[in-house]
């Protein structure tokens, strides 16, 4: 599969590059932009980014592999990220994660991203989402949910069509 950048993406990336006196600095934002459009970042996308920013592909690959939010593989349509760090864990995050996994037939003992076989959901544990006062918290895609009870979790899942 070869990577095709749409004119909008091209324009967005050019705009992002203009924010920095050094092109390389835009790489993280460019990767965000690509992921927003495609859902993940392929190796072709890395090469495209590197070319765009006058870098070597390894320079981009280095940061792509560093940040867990950047995906190297296609993910589920709905990405459920449950915070697992201390305050949320005290507030029941493990039970919440377990609840999702049980409902979706995933392994509750795995922390990393797991996608359901129908490709609809990806569930993963993530580190602190910075809303410890309303534990447990989670995100679905870019949407943020606080104080998620099991009932609320079901409701959220139900909302994912």
């Amino acid at each position, binding site marked *: 599969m070869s990577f095709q950048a749409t004119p909008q993406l091209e324009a967005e990336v050019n705009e992002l590059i203009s924010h920095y006196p050094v092109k390389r600095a835009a790489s993280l934002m460019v990767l965000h932009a690509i992921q927003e459009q495609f859902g993940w970042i392929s*190796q072709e996308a*890395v090469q495209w980014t590197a070319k765009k920013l006058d870098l*070597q*592909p*390894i*320079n981009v*690959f*280095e940061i792509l*592999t*560093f940040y*867990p939010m950047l995906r190297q593989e296609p993910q589920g349509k709905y990405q459920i990220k449950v915070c697992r760090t201390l305050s949320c864990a005290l507030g029941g995050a493990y039970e919440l994660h377990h609840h999702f996994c049980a409902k979706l037939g995933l392994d509750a003992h795995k922390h990393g991203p797991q996608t359901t076989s129908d490709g609809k959901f990806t569930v993963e544990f993530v580190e602190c989402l910075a809303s410890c006062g309303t534990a447990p918290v989670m995100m679905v895609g870019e949407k943020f949910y606080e104080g998620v009870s099991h009932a609320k979790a079901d409701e959220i899942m139900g909302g994912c069509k």
Partner: protein
Amino acid sequence: MSAAATTENKPAAPAIEKIKVKVDGREIEVPRLIADWSGKLTPTTMIQACELAKTEVPHYCWHPKLPVVGNCRMCLVEFGTPALGPDRKPVLNPDGTPKIAKSPRPAISCATPVSPGMEIYTKTPAVKQMREGVLESLLINHPLDCPICDQAGECKLQEYSVDYGQSASRFVEAKVHKPKAVDLGPRIMLDAERCILCTRCIRFTRDIAGDDALGIINRGSYNTIATFPGAPFDNNYTLNTVDVCPVGALTSKDFRFQMRAWFLKETKSVCTSCATGCNILIGSREEKIYRYTPRDNDAVNASWMCDAGRLNYKWIGRADRLQDVWVRGQKSSWPAAIRELADKLKQAPAGSVAIIASARQTNEELWLLAKLKARLGALSDAIPREGESDKLLVSADRNPNTNGARLTGICFTEMGINLVKIADGIASGKIKTLIVFGENIVKRAVAHDKLRERETISEVVDEHGITAELLGKLDALIVSDILPNETTRLAHFVLPGAAPAEKRGTFTSGKGRVQKFMKAVEAPGVARAEWEFLQELVHHVTGQNNGLTVESLFNQMAREVAAFNGLTWQALGDTGVTVQI
């Protein structure tokens, strides 16, 4: 020509201010500024001060020829600086010495500059404990597969384990396992488990070789050195990363599983693949060469060499090497052949002999040939070899001793312009005897009549008119070479010579650095170093005795050849002397 021989070709640097520091209680003076990896003057760091004080500070990521990153934390030391009172004046001890305020935190000696009056402590219990801690951290996830690791014997992990390691590991968790035997490029293998992530390889290839091909992927304990998938690590300097790798993570495919490092005898030598003359070490065991590695020489190659030069040793061990003296198709012996040659040359009329030497021969050998040339009134030349140069080390001139050939008078500034004259001489029957050393002259021959069509000199030097047919007209074709080729097949006299690794001698590099090299292995069969039999031949033909050793030959040459005046074999040292060319 002036005979000024200097050891450095750079102009003298302006005097640098010295400052006094104490290393483990011993006061030394160090320059305030010192050249960093790129040659730029930067503040002297503690590790450099310790080096000047002959105190070893263990380190992994620091390398004198690479940018500083300070990530291994092995070189942590404690230090103190003169205490300042509220009036910004030094506080004094009762005995009048400045009071030292010891820093509560250690510092990495590779990145911390020294300041006047600083005291560096490298042997305190705290420093020892820190080193032990770092070493333990490096070892917990290390696979400890020394028995199958090529680095064993020259591994910094092994070395520092002796000093700072524990006899038994207390680590009971499962190790992190990473990819093993990863094919990183055509010449490099990576074992990610062994890697200590010092990033020396990344810095070398990015900052020295200029090919930003390596990087670290993943995060934390899972960090791994890698190339971008599908982009092999392939430039002409990749094998230097194997040298700078302090552990066995990067290994050379060429040397992989060939021989254990501790068996190798290391011989100081010089690379012969181009005019740069990189200093090398030849690693050999029992007359077999296993590898070339670069040897530090800041005036020539710093700590590096190119892959092409490094792997240019295999032909030395080839089975079809010339091993016998042949006279008109018959096996002969050195005394018989030399006697016959001497008689022949002594009777040769002036101008009937021509010499084609090789700029891959040593200064001494070329000088001896020049003596024959003078006695015989011979035409002489050598064969140029041109390639492409690069920014780092590779020179466009692929002969290691072009300057030697010029300075001894074997050829002119424009090497190869006499070849046509020699061809003409043979064609006209004027030249009856041709002496060829170390070159296959037929290989580049074009038909003589075609040659006239060529116009520019550069085309003439690339191709000349000495065809096999023309060689057939000679009364005597005297050839000395190392490997058989068409010229040796046509020769009446074949004198088996020695590869540079099999003899001693000197080369004059493209920049005029006269460097000597030592003998690593024996030549096969009865093959002899060319200077040995040439010196005999010259003795017989001219009556001159120039000495029986390479030292005396060199010293005699230095007296006679203007450019080398004032040099002695001994004064060349290990890293050579630059002469005016």
